[in-house]
Structures are given as structure tokens and as C-alpha cells.
């Protein structure tokens, strides 16, 4: 797709400029309006009694004493809500064979993970609701819990959903070429490793929250919802609470971080909406940190046995892997919990020329918090497996990790093409990215220093990853499987009487600067100053219909819709201007808030044009019908998703006495197509890298053998903190995608997808003089020490 060249090279364009986000000042001055900042008349509060057991039969619930407690308005059990909320099942037809059981907002008869909501108490304050929770008596009969994924499918393991016969949720096999023959060929070395990726979660600064306001006079539900897909939630609330879709309004403004956590159906949120409807008054629920840890979706938790075969010259002949993952007792609704495994099968080795590939994935049920899509979905695992194996193989044959990548990465001029697994690839730049990476990091210098340091007992390592990222998904991601999740997005641009633009978009802002880039695109393409654009997002009532911001799709899809809408409005305005100025539209332009000649000479300020149209239409010919508003929608058509690529490197030091790992520096070269705002893209990459480092070194949801989460506090669950983070150098290659005029691909998940692999490889490079290596994340001090001991 191409567009008018002047979109990108006009004097007052904003695309490509590092303009700071307009809402930064507002948020820093404490003027943000998050769900918990909203207070409504007659508002009451929900608190939940949650299952203390990973698996238990609920034999009796006694709420009598709690009902009489001060401030209590109502108490609901699972059974109380079954007449008011229809159950939901997290399956999609394109994930063939995926199964899950019906889920209720509050546990009905059986609780299946520690933290599952069992009883909801509504009271005049949260504190009183929590007091009353302590007075509710629930009798449980504890059932054996399925905790360990590796035994979940054993014949003697209890089955969580007896109707299924076993704990298998989904499985898939992918085969390309003939891996056995490739590995058996002479001169091929096969490296065999078992990778373990810990369970972790996305810790959002603002916890999950909903404020549900039901108006019986209009049968309308308004939900202030901390989330990233308002239209999807509109459908879910409407469907399961039996309301007309149009009578549900979801407002998501402001949202303090999301990372894929706030895009699912959580029982406590649905129950809160049900309570609002039953009580006919506003009900607020704000998850506290403990609730967040035991109910926000978790991710990763994979055990992967993987092999790579390379020739002595370093050619990869194939990759073979077996992935086993546990996803909790249900598949999450509506996106399902099979996507991460599916991504791993699809993406492992995708940057490389690979003829032979075999992958098996199995997803099992277990009595732990549900798992679903968290930033990077599958990427960190796919990249760590492929690039971890590749560096291991390079070490085995004595080849440099950069050389082995240049040898195997797809050539930059080989697109369009497909990966071994059949993914359609275009506009990628692996080779260029790796070259730029080794330039900016001074690879040669680092290696020389490393050799010096080793003589002094300092173990430093350099690790690489070459990666792809799935962005800008088409309907093939969810819609095709029957999910009510929009893959297209819309944008509306309206010229005000004062000459300013009001724009609205269906993508959402959860802290990454969505609103800023929407304004940049609209201002630049249409032709007004940036501060004359007002942006509305996150409201199903006032924005066009669309998917929201997830899967690194906001800028690429919502941005293109905005570009198209701004261009359309410009054409419409110029048609009016041409009549007023008695010339033809193609002899006019809009620059800096005014209709101009193509050379920029002022002809008519936009405010004058708009005022004439809005106030003094009598001055216009009767047959002129000015439309000073335009809406456009956009979806990706030719590809299932638009891939981006990147090359990243980590420099680490391992303290071999303590097992501590210090990340000294991190470099990321990213090709996300056209960069709309370098400042924001760089921060996306950095934030993503930091979350990737979190998964690699710190973050893990630890469970006891009976399924209790052991570290559900911020003191015990370790998120990465600023003082430990390295400087992160970011550089770009810009290969615009041909699927849109804007040419932007996504950038939100690249850092998280790539960093763990780079850190893993750097640590193993550092440990290589000791003949030690580690294949488990997070790489805790104890695991590093064990790896060193094992090599002794």
C-alpha cells in the first residue's frame, strides 16, 4: 500500500518525531482518573472470600452472621449467581481439540485454585466488606490437587474435570521436513537440552478494577473498567448478564498498565457487574495485591525438551521440540490458554533458514491460577529455545555466535517467503539488524575485554538473540475461531468550529502513549499543530468499534485507521475550501491550521472555514454539503499477522561465589517498520526488556506441593527494580510494512520476547569456562550455583 508522499515529508508532519506525550504532565500531577478514583453516588464495595485450597469441594456456606455485620448490603455465593450469569467456556474453534469446562464467576460446589472467588460480600466500604468476609463460614472438603505439569497426565493423577477423562486441554503437532533423517545425517551434531520456564505474571502498577453502575430505568450497565479491550468486554458483559449489547458501556480511562493481564474474563469482575445489576446501584471492586497475585493471569510455565542439529560448518539442519505447559483449571475466556503454546510451536526458529522442524505441544489442566496471554506470549520461550540451542551448538563446534547467526538468518532480500512452519513473512531485516547490533555494542572490544577479565577470575558473558515478533494480527488470530474480538479498528476525525481536531479511536491507552501517537498521526496527516488535537479513546459509547490495544496492534492498526481518517477529512475540507476560494482542491493544501497554496502561502484559516460551514451556511452554495467529520476503519488483509524482527544482546557478569547475575548492559536493534515516535518506541523496548529481564532473573510464582502460592506479596515476588537494571541502548532499522500506508508494525512486546534469550545466552557464555550451563528461568542464585556445582 502506498499513500501520498507528503504524509511523511510535509513541513509540519509529526510522524517520526520524538514529541513527549501530552498526558505525561497530567498523570505526573496526580490528575489521572483510574477506576479507584471514580466515586459514584450510592456506590458500595465488593470483597471476596477466596478458596484457601487449590482443590476442594464446597460442602456448606453459612452467611448468616456476616449478613448482620455492620455495613453489609448483600452476600452472594456461586449458586446465588447461576440464575443471573451464564457460564463461559474458553475455547476457540481454530484451536482444534481445545477443551475447557464451563466457568462461573464464583465457584459452584468445587473450588479449583487457591484464590478462586467463592463468596462475594457487598458492603458500604471495602473494609467492612472484608470484616464480613471473616464471618462467612465455608466448609470445604479438600481434594487432591494437580500441581505438577509433568505428572498431570499420569494415569493415577486425579482428573480436574472428570467428564474429560484426563487433564489434557489441548495438543498440537507441527511437522515440516524430516527431522529424524536430518539429525541422522553424517556430519550433523545434535544438541539436546531441557528448558524450564517459571510461571510468572504481569505486575501492573494499577491493579485490576471495575466500577459497575446499573441503571434499571434504561436497563443500562456502565462499567468503569481497567482494561485494554473495551468492546470485547462490552460483548462479554452483555452476553453473560443478559443485557442488550448496546446497553452496556465500557469506559477504560486511565489504565495504569496492563501487559495482557486486563483482557480476560475474571470472575470477580463479572460478579461485581452482576451485583450492580441485582442491587441497582454502583458496585466497585479493586483487586488488592494478594488478589492480583492469585487471580491475575499467570504465564509461561513450560518444560521444553528441545534438540537442534547443526553441521560442522554451523548450518542448522533442524529443530525438534516437545513443549509441556500447565494452564490452571480452565482455559481462560475468551482468548483461551492455548495461545502461548501455539505461539511456541509457530515461532521457534522462525528467524532462521530451517527445512526440518518438528514440534509437539501439550497443554494440561492443573489446580493453579489460570494462565493466559501476558506480554510477549510465547515469544520469550520460542526465542530462548531456538537461540539458546543455537549458541550451545555454536560453542560445541567452536563457532562465534554472531557468525552462526549470519550464516543461518534469512537473507534480507529473500522476502516475501514463509517460515518452516508456514508463517508468511515479509519486510524483515535480520541480517541488517544483527550487523547494526554488533556495531553499536562494539562486539570486538567486548570480546577482547572478556578474555582479559577471565584471567582475573571475572566471569562476563555476551549473549545474543535474533527474533521475530507477531504484531498487527488479522482476523486469523481470534475472530476466525469464533471470538467476539475485533481485529479491525476505527478512527474518527472531526474539525471543530475553532479549527481544532477532535479525534476518537477504538485502540486504547494503558500507559504506552497511544493517545500521543494518534494525535501525531492526525495532526501531521491533516495539517494542524499537535496541541490542537484532542484525543478520545477507551469508551465504547464515543469511539468507533474496534479491538483495543494488545498483541502489539495499536499503532499499526489503529494508527493506520487514524491516518486514513485524517486524510479523508483533509480531502473533504479541501473540497469545501476549493468552492470557497473558487479554485480546485488539488491546488490547495492544509498546513499548520490553515488552507494554503501548495507552497504554504496562507489562503484561509481552518477556523474561518469551519465557522462559515457551521454558522453561516447561507454563504455556501446550496448544493454543497460539507462533511467536517470522517471515519475510517482498517484491518490487516494479506497476512495473518505482520512480523517484526530485532536483534538484541546482553552483557552480564556472573558472581560464581554467590550465583548472582548482574546485567551490565543491554542493546536492542528493532525493526518495527515506520517509527511514529522514537521516544515512545524506545520506552516500549526498554520497558519490554526490563520485563524480559524479570522473567529471566527474578520473577516466579512459587507453589507448594498442595498448590498454595507461596510468594503472593510484593516483598516475596521479585519484580525487576530500577537500581538493578542496566542501561539499555536502542537502535532502529525501519522497514515499513507494505500492508499499510503508515508502514508501522508493533513494538510493544519485542523487548520481553527477546531479552530472556539474550540474558540466558550471556549467562551461559559467562559460565562456559567452567563448562557449566543453565537452562532454567528465572536464573536464581541457587540455580546458578547448582549449575556450577553440576559441572565440577
Amino acid at each position, binding site marked *: 500500500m502506498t499513500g501520498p508522499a507528503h504524509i511523511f515529508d510535509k513541513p509540519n508532519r509529526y510522524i517520526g518525531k520524538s514529541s513527549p506525550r501530552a498526558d505525561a504532565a497530567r498523570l505526573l500531577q496526580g490528575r489521572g482518573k483510574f477506576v479507584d478514583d471514580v466515586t459514584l453516588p450510592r456506590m458500595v464495595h465488593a470483597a471476596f472470600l477466596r478458596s484457601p485450597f487449590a482443590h476442594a469441594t464446597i460442602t456448606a456456606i453459612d452467611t448468616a452472621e456476616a449478613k448482620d455485620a455492620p455495613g453489609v448490603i448483600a452476600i452472594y455465593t456461586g449458586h446465588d449467581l447461576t440464575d443471573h450469569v451464564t457460564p463461559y467456556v474458553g475455547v476457540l474453534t481454530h484451536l482444534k481439540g481445545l477443551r475447557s469446562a464451563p466457568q462461573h464467576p464464583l465457584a459452584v460446589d468445587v473450588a479449583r485454585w487457591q484464590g478462586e472467588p467463592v463468596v462475594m460480600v457487598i458492603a458500604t466500604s471495602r473494609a467492612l466488606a472484608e470484616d464480613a468476609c*471473616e464471618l462467612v463460614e465455608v466448609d470445604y472438603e479438600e481434594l487432591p490437587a494437580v500441581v505438577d505439569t509433568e505428572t498431570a497426565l499420569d494415569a493415577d493423577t486425579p482428573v480436574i474435570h472428570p467428564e474429560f477423562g484426563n487433564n489434557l486441554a489441548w495438543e498440537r503437532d507441527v511437522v515440516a521436513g524430516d527431522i529424524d533423517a536430518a539429525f541422522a545425517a553424517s556430519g550433523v551434531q545434535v544438541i539436546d537440552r531441557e528448558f524450564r520456564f517459571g510461571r510468572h505474571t504481569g505486575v501492573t502498577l494499577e491493579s485490576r478494577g471495575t466500577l459497575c453502575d446499573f441503571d434499571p430505568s434504561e436497563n443500562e450497565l456502565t462499567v468503569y473498567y481497567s482494561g485494554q479491550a473495551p468492546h470485547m468486554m462490552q460483548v462479554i458483559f452483555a452476553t453473560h448478564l443478559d443485557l442488550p449489547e448496546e446497553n452496556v458501556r465500557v469506559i477504560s480511562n486511565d489504565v495504569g498498565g496492563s501487559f495482557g493481564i486486563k483482557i480476560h474474563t475474571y470472575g470477580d469482575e463479572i460478579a461485581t457487574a452482576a451485583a450492580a445489576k441485582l442491587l441497582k446501584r454502583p458496585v466497585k471492586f479493586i483487586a488488592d495485591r494478594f488478589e492480583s497475585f492469585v487471580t491475575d493471569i499467570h504465564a509461561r510455565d513450560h518444560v521444553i525438551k528441545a534438540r537442534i542439529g547443526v553441521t560442522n560448518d554451523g548450518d542448522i539442519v533442524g529443530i525438534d521440540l516437545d513443549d509441556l505447559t500447565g494452564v490452571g483449571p480452565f482455559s481462560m475466556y475468551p482468548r483461551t490458554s492455548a495461545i502461548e503454546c501455539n505461539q511456541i510451536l509457530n515461532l521457534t526458529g522462525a528467524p532462521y533458514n530451517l527445512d526440518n522442524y518438528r514440534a509437539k505441544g501439550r497443554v494440561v489442566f492443573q489446580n493453579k491460577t489460570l494462565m493466559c496471554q501476558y506480554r510477549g506470549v510465547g515469544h520469550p520461550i520460542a526465542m530462548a529455545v531456538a537461540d539458546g540451542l543455537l549458541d550451545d551448538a555454536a560453542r560445541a563446534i567452536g563457532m562465534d555466535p554472531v557468525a552462526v547467526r549470519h550464516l543461518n538468518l534469512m537473507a534480507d532480500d529473500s522476502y516475501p517467503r514463509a517460515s518452516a512452519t508456514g508463517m508468511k513473512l515479509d519486510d524483515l531485516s535480520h541480517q541488517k539488524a544483527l550487523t547494526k547490533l554488533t556495531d553499536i555494542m562494539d562486539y570486538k572490544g567486548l570480546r577482547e575485554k572478556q578474555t582479559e577479565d577471565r584471567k582475573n577470575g571475572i566471569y562476563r558473558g555476551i549473549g545474543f538473540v535474533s527474533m521475530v515478533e507477531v504484531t498487527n494480527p488479522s482476523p486469523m488470530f481470534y475472530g476466525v475461531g469464533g471470538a467476539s474480538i475485533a481485529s479491525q479498528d476505527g478512527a474518527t476525525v472531526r474539525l471543530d468550529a475553532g479549527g481544532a481536531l477532535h479525534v476518537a479511536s477504538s485502540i486504547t491507552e494503558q500507559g504506552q502513549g497511544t493517545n500521543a501517537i494518534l494525535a501525531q498521526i492526525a495532526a501531521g496527516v491533516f495539517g494542524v499543530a499537535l496541541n490542537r488535537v484532542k484525543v478520545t479513546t477507551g469508551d465504547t459509547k464515543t469511539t468507533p468499534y474496534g479491538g483495543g490495544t494488545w498483541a502489539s496492534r495499536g499503532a499499526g492498526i489503529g494508527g493506520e485507521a487514524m491516518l486514513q481518517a485524517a486524510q479523508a477529512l483533509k480531502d473533504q475540507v479541501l473540497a469545501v475550501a476549493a468552492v470557497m476560494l473558487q479554485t480546485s482542491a488539488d491546488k490547495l493544501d492544509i498546513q499548520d491550521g490553515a488552507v494554503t497554496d501548495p507552497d504554504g502561502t496562507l489562503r484561509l484559516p481552518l477556523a474561518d472555514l469551519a465557522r462559515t460551514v457551521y454558522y453561516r451556511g447561507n454563504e455556501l452554495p446550496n448544493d454543497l454539503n460539507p462533511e467536517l467529520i470522517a471515519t475510517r476503519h482498517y484491518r490487516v488483509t494479506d497476512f495473518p499477522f505482520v512480523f517484526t524482527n530485532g536483534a538484541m544482546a546482553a552483557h552480564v557478569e556472573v558472581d560464581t561465589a554467590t550465583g548472582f547475575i548482574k546485567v551490565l548492559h543491554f542493546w536492542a536493534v528493532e525493526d518495527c517498520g515506520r517509527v511514529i515516535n522514537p521516544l515512545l518506541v524506545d520506552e516500549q523496548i526498554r520497558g519490554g526488556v526490563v520485563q524480559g529481564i524479570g522473567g529471566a532473573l527474578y520473577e516466579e510464582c512459587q507453589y507448594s506441593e498442595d498448590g498454595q502460592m507461596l510468594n503472593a506479596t510484593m516483598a516475596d515476588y*521479585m519484580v525487576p527494580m530500577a537500581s538493578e537494571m542496566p542501561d539499555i541502548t536502542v537502535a532502529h532499522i525501519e522497514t515499513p510494512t507494505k500492508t499499510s500506508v503508515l508502514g508501522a508494525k508493533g513494538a510493544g512486546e519485542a523487548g520481553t520476547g527477546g531479552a530472556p534469550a539474550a540474558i540466558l545466552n550471556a549467562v551461559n557464555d559467562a559460565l562456559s569456562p567452567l563448562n557449566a550451563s543453565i537452562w532454567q528461568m528465572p536464573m536464581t542464585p541457587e540455580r546458578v550455583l547448582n549449575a556450577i556445582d553440576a559441572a565440577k
Partner: protein
Amino acid sequence: MKAPDFDYLRPANLDAALAMLAEHDGNAVPLAGGQSLMPMMNFRVAAPEVLIDLADVAELRGITRNGDHVRIGAMTRYVQLSKDPIILADVPLIGMALPHIAHDAIRNRGTIGGSLALADPAAEMPALMLALDAAIEVVGANGTRLIKADNFFLSYFETVLEKDELITAVVIPTASNTQSFGFCELTQRHGDYALAGVAVSRTDAKYRIAFFGVADRAVRVAALEDTVGDDLEKALAHLDEIEFTDDGKANAATRQRLAGVALTRALEEMTS
């Protein structure tokens, strides 16, 4: 995570505070910096009926030197310790440890008395008191007691303090020219509780070495202290006498190993 209902009292002096404690007979607890107590209440792990805020009790404040001792009032906050000339000159070990205790926001409010009363086995202050041979001054209905730090800490969050008693101060011998100090704490993230840490004071050839973050309380090992001056390797073998904590952050074997590394590094710093 909202605290259950409680009453809040704010006595103006020590006598009033003690009277309130006695009056509520075990149902009241003192509030110092609140950096541990308030989270525990919000988690509903602690549910006191009455909080007695010590903020206005002047007798609990102030840092003074009396001859060969330094007296630190229980309500002295970490941030005050970090800036106090007496502390920096006469109790340098505290200055070495402070940057490792949490973060600015917590150091602005947390108190030395609160930390000692809490007796978190991973906290720095109890170990410092052991290494410094400090005494903890305690006042209750039965008058004032001066308790050696060695006898003060019993187990996880457990001390010899009675319910009607308050810590009023700690009394620490001033550092002499013949003394030197060492400190090392191993944490993955700055400001976290230690995976293993150690505080060392050496007077001539005699060592007092207190480990924290490794067991049910801050601990000294006599045999280790006796041998460490001559043979570090041999001394480290005596770590076996500690019953090391085994938890999600590190198992007992790792903790023992890290305790050894911490001590080795603390001693290296002292001699270098």
C-alpha cells in the same frame, strides 16, 4: 487488604504510653514507624484493638553519648541515624548497614526500636546489636530492664519483651581505636531483605560476628568467632551449627554457602 477496625491513641509522654499499654492489657500494641505493623494489619495478620502511637513520646527520641556509650532512643528513625554525627563517628557499623535497609521512603519512617521489637530474622538492626554487644533498654510496669542483645531475640518475630513493656532505647559501646567493623549483605535487589548477611566487629583479635537472614533470628556462633582470626576455612565449618532457613528464595545449603561468602567478603573489606 484493609485493616480491621482499631482505636488509635497518641500518648504525650512515656508514663501515659505505659499506662495505656497496661490499661488495654495485651490488646494494645505500640506503633512506631508503622513500616511493618501497618502492612501486617492490612494483611490481617495482625489485628490489634488499639494502636498506641509513640510519635509524641519525647523520652524515646534523641541520640546521646554518655562516656563510653551511645544511647539511641527507640523512636529514632533510620534517616536520623544516617545523618547523625555521633552515630557516624562512634557507631560506624550502623552507618555501613543503613544503605542496605529498604529504601528512602521506608527509612524516613522506620525506627530502630520498631525493628528490634519486631525481630525479623532477616533485618539488619538485630544483627548489628549482637555484633556491637549492645543492650536494649526496656521499660514496663515493673520498671526498667537493660537486656543484652544476646539475650533479647528468641525466634522468628519473638523477643523477651513483655506485652506491657516498651523498648525505650539501645545502649551501644562507643567504637574504640582498637576496633574495626565489617558488613556484607547479599541480596538480589538493592534494599531487599538479605538472602544472607553478616555484621562483624573486631576488638584486637576478638571477633563478634552476627549473621542475619539465615536462621530464625540473628545468630552468633562462638566457635566460629574463636577460630576466624586464625583460620577462615576452619571457622566457616562451624556454620554447620546454624539451623539455616529453607524457603522459596534459597534452601539451607545455599544459605549456608552465602553466609560463608558474606563473611569472607566482610573480612576482606576490613583488611583491605
